[in-house]
């Protein structure tokens, strides 16, 4: 046998343009895995010269799956640069928007992107290993999944104007009132959604039991973790950033505006997406991961009761910190629960239909500001500099996915070693596929 390079192009069921280059030695052992992200569109450059208040319209186009976090990180960055504090009711509406996205994205990710592997088996036929096939084979699960996504997406549209690329957040508040009729409608619908979410928790538990072997054995990769929290609670809209080291120690706890001290961006030779890491530790030692599991690791507890029970269950089973890459799916379900609980609380809050949503006097000024939120796939940070007319002069952005790519690559390398070198997949206990 000679040295061999395997290309997997494209990496599927993942948004963005990824390819894998897998290099094997003569003996067929794993030499290296590269995750090649094949495109980027240079938002950080072409936002220059634009009206800063338009950045929240432009930047959602970075990601159509999670445009709401970009919309809000963007508006928060401008508000920070202009020293503007939006009215409390506007902040509640934004939180509702972000949680609605968190919910639909997690549901989409679980059912359309991840579940096919669990339900059809990771080695299943590609024609069957997808959500379309799941819908055909398990119509009840499929229908429930679609209705959960629908609830989240329609709530996004009701608050943001459009589910894909929302438009209503503006420096100084929100442009559109959330009507009482809409509030009542979504509050009513949320009752079913809570039930579906609990059913999803049960489904996830079954998957966890069935796949206990791969979850606990395959791709268990100790890294640093990054995530937002608010007084220790898992938080997605506003808070402080925490970094946890592989041993589980909190090594940094800082305001997002001080990110430059902690964030390093390594530019790999072979990927258009940079690898973000914990700067004080250097690269690759300081590689961190963000996203669901990272948030669940850095937070002391969940912000809502049912989600907290679910987190406790996961920690009882796997500890803290959890390094098992497959536990990301579990953590996703825990966050799904928090999202619906928070939405319910917000929908019941009388402020949510307030008409006092926007300051009437918002003045641009020269300065810079950081806006940071948690996107479903991890911590998202926008940093803008504006001139005294409120025109953007410079932009730095660290998007959610880039916090995960290096960690993802590590997980793939680990799983790759286990599979190519130790033939781990042959000894792992896998259940019979459900479809």
């Amino acid at each position, binding site marked *: 046998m000679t040295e061999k390079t395997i290309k997997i192009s494209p990496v599927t069921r993942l948004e963005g343009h990824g390819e894998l280059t897998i290099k094997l030695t003569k003996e067929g052992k794993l030499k290296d895995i590269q995750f090649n992200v094949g495109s980027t569109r240079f938002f950080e450059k072409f936002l220059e010269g634009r009206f800063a208040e338009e950045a929240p319209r432009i930047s959602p186009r970075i990601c159509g799956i999670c445009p709401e976090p970009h919309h809000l990180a963007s508006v928060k960055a401008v508000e920070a640069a202009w020293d503007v504090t939006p009215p409390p009711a506007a902040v509640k509406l934004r939180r509702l928007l972000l949680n609605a996205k968190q919910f639909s994205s997690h549901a989409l990710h679980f059912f359309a992107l991840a579940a096919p592997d669990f339900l059809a088996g990771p080695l299943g036929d590609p024609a069957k290993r997808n959500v379309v096939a799941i819908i055909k084979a398990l119509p009840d699960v499929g229908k429930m999944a679609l*209705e959960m996504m629908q609830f989240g997406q329609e709530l996004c549209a009701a608050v943001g104007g459009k589910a894909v690329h929302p438009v209503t957040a503006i420096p100084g508040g929100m442009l559109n009132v959330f009507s009482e009729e809409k509030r009542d409608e979504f509050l009513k619908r949320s009752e079913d959604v809570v039930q579906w979410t609990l059913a999803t928790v049960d489904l996830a538990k079954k998957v966890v039991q069935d796949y206990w072997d791969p979850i606990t054995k395959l791709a268990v990769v100790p890294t640093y973790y990054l995530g937002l929290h608010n007084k220790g609670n898992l938080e997605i809209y506003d808070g402080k950033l925490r970094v946890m080291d592989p041993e589980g120690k909190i090594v940094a706890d800082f305001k997002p505006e001080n990110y430059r001290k902690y964030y390093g961006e390594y*530019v790999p030779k072979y990927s258009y997406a940079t690898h973000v890491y914990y700067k004080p530790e250097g690269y690759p030692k300081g590689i961190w991961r963000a996203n669901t599991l990272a948030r669940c690791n850095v937070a002391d507890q969940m912000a809502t009761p049912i989600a907290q029970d679910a987190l406790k269950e996961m920690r009882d089973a796997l500890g803290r910190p959890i390094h098992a890459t497959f536990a990301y799916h579990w953590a996703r379900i825990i966050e799904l629960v928090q999202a619906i609980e928070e939405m319910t609380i917000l929908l019941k809050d009388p402020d949510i239909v307030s008409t006092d949503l926007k300051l009437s006097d918002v003045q641009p000024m020269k300065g810079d500001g950081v806006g940071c939120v948690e996107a479903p796939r991890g911590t998202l940070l926008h940093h803008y500099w504006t001139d005294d007319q409120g025109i953007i002069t410079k932009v730095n952005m660290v998007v959610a996915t880039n916090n995960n790519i290096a960690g993802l690559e590590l997980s793939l390398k680990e799983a790759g070693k286990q599979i190519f070198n130790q033939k781990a997949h042959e000894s792992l206990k896998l259940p019979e596929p459900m479809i």
Partner: protein
Amino acid sequence: MAKRIALTQLSSCWGCDQSLIDLHLRLLDVLPELEIVYWPAVVDYKLHDLENLPDNSIHIGLVEGSCRTKEDMHLLEIMRAKSKILVAWGSCSVFGGVQGLANQWDLKELLERKYMKAETVTDPRIPKENLSGFTEHIVPNPELVEVDVLLPGCPPTSDNTLDALTALLTNKPFDLPAKTVCDQCPMEREEKNIKQFKRTHEGKIEPGKCILDQGYLCLGFATIGLCGAQCPTVNTPCKGCFGPPPAVTDHGAKIISALGAVADMDPEELQNAFPDPIGSFYFTDYASSYLSKMRGKNRGKKK
């Protein structure tokens, strides 16, 4: 019988896909009509599976995104060859998309900002290994290959895509309307006589009344009426993300023409109100503007 369909993403945000998925339960009516032969977002087929299909074997090929990389160009050409009906899906595909705004700069400057000068970058370099390389500037897909159907929108609404698919699946033509967002907009209008333009964060937009009449730049008048006036309906100015109606060849020229007619202002005031006309008048379609094409041709000549 189910028709063979492929959905591909060039450089894009995947929002067009998300918008299609947002048909939710209605997907259950559409899916049985389709045999998906390629859709990396959802199905595990690989690029070589697509490359190995016979030419013209796909009934409908949807292309989202624009050509920012050489790999994108390759994919676009394959999709053209394999598809009987090639659909430019979304404003990225039809006009070059929001990333077309980058055509204001040379590629070198874009790369520098991102990889050499970004605040957090610790070891600057321009990635090259196992990567296809970038295109110098963005050229809209219909100028690169022959496209059969245009469906603009950023993203097209779920219904827009459903309507187009339904028409194409039943061998009916799919034509774009000549109407504008204003034609679809429920806001109350008056005689336009604008004395001053306000920026969106200034003051408060009064609900129910035409946003342009209130002195905010709302581009509904120059934008194709396909979205159902989504933004003005939620008290937010239209930024023109669906591009102009089919007869208008340059969005910005159309907007400037209209502003000249409705603005009752000194020329300097008018100019000061729009210090960034490219960003204000060409949101997702700068790459298809005359100006960007001029600069693009110029770039070609310099080399």
